[in-house]
């Protein structure tokens, strides 16, 4: 096995044994990035010299007797997390040259553990997209098939981890943006319970839905990262006082007696048969390990997508108002007056999908439409939450497909926003409820594209999801498959 395929545990072992230093490891991965990124476009910014300096610092700390599960381990951040001194673009022309004077809490915490940031990862513009095609910096390509999308919005993170450019990365998930690209790229990613991971310094798309989380090649690596990412942050009012936990502690618990619910609504029209088969096989493996599988109903799940596409744009229309051409954003040259400054700067700075969602969001909050759209959507959101509450009275985890289809070709859904929105049909309800959910690789299609299985849990059952995924990965090999990416495809 090669260094770029190592798990976090193996990397730590190697660093402890002095098999390799953090500088050597970092150098290997930087070379790999420089060779493969032209084909994948996963990185927007590579911070080579900062990374080597951070690796040298980590090596010095280790030489001084320090140790830690993340000390000297390379990683990369989705370009939605603000990094002091390194530009943070959010995939947008609007922030093409924006350099934050502060670190996001997540960045601060992982840096303090001695992690080595290799750069910033491509994403759908302002996290709005399911294919990574809305990025101002061009689409990311799926390492398993570069003609295919990696999913989105954390497409750069998923592709970088899958291709072995970094062992782990951060992502954010507003309607499936960690889980859907994790599924399409064959990696493991968890959207934690809302309030687990601080949103401070994480550029907001839809504040009541956004949640940061780890993306890695297995559940244990996710747990190691989440151990540091999850913490109460007084700078984020929605951060939960009990956010911190040890996600490794229960990782090995056997699945004997685990109550698994399979929602009928997740296996209806629109589900690709190959995806269905792989997920059914995954559920069978859980049953083989002693889980009790039963069918459940989530009757309001079919309303999740339309509810989401009222609430998320509403919040986004307001969250993105600060990008106005006045301070740190793109500014149109020579506007005639204030109105033109706003109009031109925002027209030029935002891409089509972002503009579409701002328009929708502005509309649903407008006088005379608020009750029909925004308020109604909030009511449906309560019903969706209630669905899960009822379900979790009977089962411990809910299992189904992460996405209706495997990765689709670049450009395939660009002409039809609604078709694109349906890529998140199974992931969105989780964000509306605020519960945790995770995607694990559970097979491949005949064309060699990965399939993801989604595990959903009750509030603060993040540890249980990681436990189930970990036990599943002890008995399956899907997560050990690595794509072969070739530099020639640049």
């Amino acid at each position: 096995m090669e260094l770029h395929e190592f798990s976090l545990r193996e990397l730590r072992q190697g660093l402890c044994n002095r098999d390799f230093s953090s500088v050597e490891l970092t150098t290997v991965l930087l070379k790999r990035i420089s060779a493969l990124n032209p084909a994948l476009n996963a990185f927007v910014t590579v911070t080579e010299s900062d990374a080597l300096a951070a690796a040298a610092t980590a090596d010095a700390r280790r030489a001084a007797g320090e140790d830690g599960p993340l000390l000297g381990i390379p990683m990369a951040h989705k370009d939605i997390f603000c990094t002091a001194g390194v530009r943070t673009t959010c995939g947008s022309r609007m922030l093409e040259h924006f350099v934050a004077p502060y670190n996001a809490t997540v960045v601060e915490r992982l840096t303090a553990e001695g992690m080595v940031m290799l750069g910033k990862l491509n994403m759908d513009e302002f996290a709005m997209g399911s294919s990574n095609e809305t990025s101002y910096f061009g689409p990311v390509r799926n390492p398993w098939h570069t003609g295919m999308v990696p999913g989105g919005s954390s497409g750069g993170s998923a592709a970088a981890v899958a291709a072995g450019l970094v062992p782990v990365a951060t992502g954010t998930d507003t309607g499936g943006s960690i889980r859907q690209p994790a599924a399409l790229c064959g990696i493991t990613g968890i959207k934690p319970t809302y309030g687990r991971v601080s949103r401070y310094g994480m550029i907001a798309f839809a504040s009541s839905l956004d949640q940061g989380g780890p993306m890695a090649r297995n559940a244990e690596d996710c747990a190691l990262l989440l151990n540091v990412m999850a913490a109460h942050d007084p700078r984020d009012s929605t951060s939960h006082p009990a956010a911190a936990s040890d996600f490794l502690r229960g990782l090995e618990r056997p699945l004997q007696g685990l109550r698994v619910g399979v929602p009928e609504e997740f296996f209806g029209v629109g589900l690709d048969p190959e995806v269905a088969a792989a997920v059914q096989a995954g559920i069978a493996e859980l049953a083989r390990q002693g889980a009790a599988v039963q069918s459940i109903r989530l009757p309001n799940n079919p309303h999740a997508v339309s509810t989401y596409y009222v609430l998320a744009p509403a919040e986004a229309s307001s969250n993105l108002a600060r990008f106005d051409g006045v301070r740190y954003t793109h500014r149109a040259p020579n506007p005639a007056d204030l109105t033109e400054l706003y109009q031109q700067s925002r027209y030029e700075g935002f891409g089509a999908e972002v503009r579409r969602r701002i328009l929708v969001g502005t509309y649903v909050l407008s006088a005379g439409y608020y009750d029909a759209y925004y308020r109604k959507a909030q009511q449906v959101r309560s019903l969706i939450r209630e669905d899960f509450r009822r379900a979790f009275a009977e089962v411990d985890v809910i299992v189904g497909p992460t996405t209706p289809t495997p990765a689709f070709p670049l450009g395939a859904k660009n002409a039809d926003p609604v078709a694109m929105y349906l890529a998140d049909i199974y992931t969105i309800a989780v964000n509306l409820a605020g519960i945790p959910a995770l995607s694990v690789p559970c097979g491949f299609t005949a064309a060699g594209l990965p399939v993801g299985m989604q595990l959903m849990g009750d509030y603060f059952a993040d540890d249980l999801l990681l436990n189930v995924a970990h036990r599943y990965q002890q008995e399956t090999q899907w997560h050990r498959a690595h794509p072969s990416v070739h530099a020639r495809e640049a």
Partner: protein
Amino acid sequence: MNMDWEVVIGLEVHAQLNTITKIFCGCPTAFGAEPNLHTCPVCLAMPGALPVLNGAAVDKAIALGLAIGAELNRHSIFARKNYFYPDLPKGYQISQYELPVVGKGALTVQLPDGGEKVVGVTRAHLEEDAGKSLHEAFIGQSGIDLNRAGTPLLEIVSEPDMRSSVEAVAYLKKLHTLVRYLDICDGNMQEGSFRCDANVSLRRSGAPYGTRAEIKNLNSFRFLEKAIEYEIVRQRDILESGGRIVQETRLYDANRDETRSMRGKEEANDYRYFPDPDLLPLVLDESRVERVRETLPELPDARRIRFMRQYALPAYDAGVLTAGRTLADYYEQVAVGVDGKLAANWVMGDLLGALNKAGVELEDCPVSAGKLRLLVQRIEDQTISGKIAKDIFDELFHRGGEVDAIIDSRGLRQITDVAAIAAMVDAIVTAHPQQAADFRAGKDKLLGFFVGQVMKASQGKANPDQVNAILLEHLQKG
């Protein structure tokens, strides 16, 4: 004004809360710093920055709610008011909309004619102030100063209960007194820490409310009065010539003493309010409300009534002395152990007069309450006369010093020695035999002449009451 028209007025007051830091970040609220010095990622609305509510601002809102007997909403919501403006860095203002922290309450207002009126308060809600646009210093451009962005405001909305500019001014003054008593706002109207918008409409007596105009940013009691008076005439002229009032926002121009249309209803922003997902609902538990209740000072109404009883003051005096907390505190320090009304006369007359003339605030008064009390005591114990006391006060105010030291060094001690006064009286009466004879013949008025002569001879130091008594005795005895 034509008696058939009734004016209906409601006020929206913005009181800047005097917290040390801003409402959603740790930046100082201090006024007058270099532009953009008091800013951070949160109040600059940098990407990813999040608001965290300042509990001190909440406590100050609770204090106001308790002081006006209002319902405190145990669960209130922060909402976003969305509009674009360069000095509004987030593109929205965090405010409260559907559920404010303070609900219905009322304020009892004293009117100049001695009457009282109860004015309903609809609600009071917390919100953040915007920054400032600076147009003067930049040619063809505008500068933005965000020092003020995020300063906490309490918007206090009245019911349309006022029926004249006099009532509106009385309400605003009462609220001004109250916020300073509660120490929630410094009340500085020039700097804009206490400003008001007035909703004014006319109707025929008993008819439903007419269409209103909203007059923005009135930053003095006088401007409020003049703007309302102007608006009454403007609306009456329109209505009486058969026209209709347009619902609009108007601006008062103090230089021209008129209101001008700013924007009509159709140009009004659609603010697209919705609950701010970055902030949890504000929950007030009973213990927090009780904690604030325990810190409440004695409120102006209670203090006014106590002053009337404890110091035997007329209602007018008690009203003047309790209009400000500092003044009332000062008075109470002066009134210790001395006659309350005498102390009130000194505070309201000589002291306020001197301060006013010198343009000095009470906080910076050169004569401490202790010194003024001693001065009053020296009048009461007859060390000096009231007239001499005025001279001493003048010296204390302009040159400083100690009361007794001035009395001694300038030899101002009052003469109360009966023998000494009798000797002076004797000398004066002897020197004016004609006047003495006339007095005895019935010209009572001449007593004043003799008193004046004796006082003059004593350089004002003889005790006037004693002079009177001894003179009478002497003259009558003949």
